[in-house]
């Protein structure tokens, strides 16, 4: 049954991707890309990667789509006819694809439990992590504890991306009050948004703090919280959103999360352990692991939330500026 789902969903994914090539209407391309992301999330669930599916659904179908749409608002929605012939790219792609297909024949068959990938570190994570770290969710254990250094690096990359976007675009803070912004005229949207925004934030908090036990964690929670505020900004207008969470505040929160994460590492060094070795944080190693993971996931959540929101602010304030002109 699982195999059938796999084959059907992957075929739908391939068809969606194929359609994207030929569409000239970029609005439709972006919408199809949202569908593509949702399909990927379903496939990830089917392949047991629940945490990944969670992230893909929130990021790919939510934030990516919003960012691409706000770019389209500035750059126009139709693609011009291509000037160069599509023959050469086609040959390059078919040749590369044929070589890669030939390469896949040397891969171990899909889903076998004795594949090389399952032989090295994975048994340690699966068998030891419930005792060593004390969390049922192995993905969180590996993410936050075994590979904590790696995750710190990725949080820094996310922060660096926000720095890049803000230095390229910048946020216009002073909005004219009389200017039309958001969709305040739509009563249904306003009421529904007011109803679901608190629920989204509540869900994000659940994802943040329940990530140790079920699917979820700082990355997903940060994105979901940001999505709640983005919805608020879309419905009630950017000036109103700036009053709730000011751009300045997100610019403070983004480095704060990274500092919390790195601070846990430095605390563990000061307590005589290695960098990001949570065992020394409390008297009992497992309690130390719990504490460390809770704090660094919070740091990750704060940074991801602030970065996503400030990137959205940067794009949205560009769009509003273009609307005035």
């Amino acid at each position, binding site marked *: 049954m699982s195999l059938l789902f796999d*084959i059907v969903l992957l075929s739908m994914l391939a068809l969606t*991707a194929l359609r994207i090539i030929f569409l000239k209407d970029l609005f439709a391309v972006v919408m199809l890309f949202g569908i593509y992301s949702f399909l990927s999330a379903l496939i990830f669930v089917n392949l047991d990667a629940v945490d990944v599916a969670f992230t893909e659904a929130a990021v790919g179908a939510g934030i990516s789509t919003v960012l691409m749409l706000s770019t389209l608002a500035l750059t126009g929605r139709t693609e011009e006819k291509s000037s160069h012939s599509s023959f050469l790219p086609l040959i390059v792609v078919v040749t590369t694809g044929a070589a890669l*297909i030939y390469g896949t024949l040397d891969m171990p068959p899909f889903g076998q439990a004795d594949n090389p990938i399952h032989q090295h570190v994975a048994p340690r994570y699966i068998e030891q992590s419930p005792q060593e770290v004390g969390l049922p*969710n192995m993905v969180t254990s590996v993410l936050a504890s075994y590979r904590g250094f790696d995750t710190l690096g990725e949080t820094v990359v996310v922060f660096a991306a926000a720095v890049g976007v803000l230095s390229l675009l910048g946020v216009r803070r002073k909005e004219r009050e009389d200017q039309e912004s958001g969709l305040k005229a739509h009563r249904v949207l306003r009421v529904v948004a007011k109803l679901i925004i608190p629920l989204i934030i509540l869900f994000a908090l659940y994802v943040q703090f329940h990530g140790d036990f079920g699917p979820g964690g700082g990355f997903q929670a940060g994105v979901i919280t940001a999505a709640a505020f983005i919805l608020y900004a879309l419905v009630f207008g950017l000036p109103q959103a700036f009053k709730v969470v000011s751009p300045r505040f997100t610019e403070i929160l983004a480095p704060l999360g990274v500092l919390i994460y790195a601070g846990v590492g430095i605390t563990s060094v000061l307590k005589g352990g290695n960098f990001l070795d949570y065992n020394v944080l409390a008297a009992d190693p497992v309690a130390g692991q719990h504490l460390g993971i809770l704090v660094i996931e919070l740091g990750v959540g704060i940074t991801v939330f602030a970065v996503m929101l400030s990137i959205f602010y940067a794009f949205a304030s560009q769009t509003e500026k273009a609307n005035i002109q």
Partner: protein
Amino acid sequence: MSFVADYYNYWVVVFLMMTGFYVVISANNLVKKIVGLNIFQTSVFMLYISMGKVTNGSAPIVAEGIEQYSNPLPHVLILTAIVVGVATTAVGLSLIVRIKRAYGTVEENEFQDKDDVI
């Protein structure tokens, strides 16, 4: 049939990767190129997650009565890669916004012509 089932995931990954690659090298519009890059990127995610799957395995969350778990390591790598991916996509899109402002177009052939004039 077993041969197809053994490699189907990898073949779709290759197809998606080549679709994304084709969009990147053939499209003129920069926003569409970014969409192509994202398709390419998702195909890599799909490859990793497919390799981590164990038939009849379960999601790597400890529960009673489950003996076979899928490999959690690819999940960790890809989870963070997705968030990093959207952040870098945002940088790409903001570069496009700046290009639009400087050249008045986001079609690759058009702003190259303008560059030649300057």
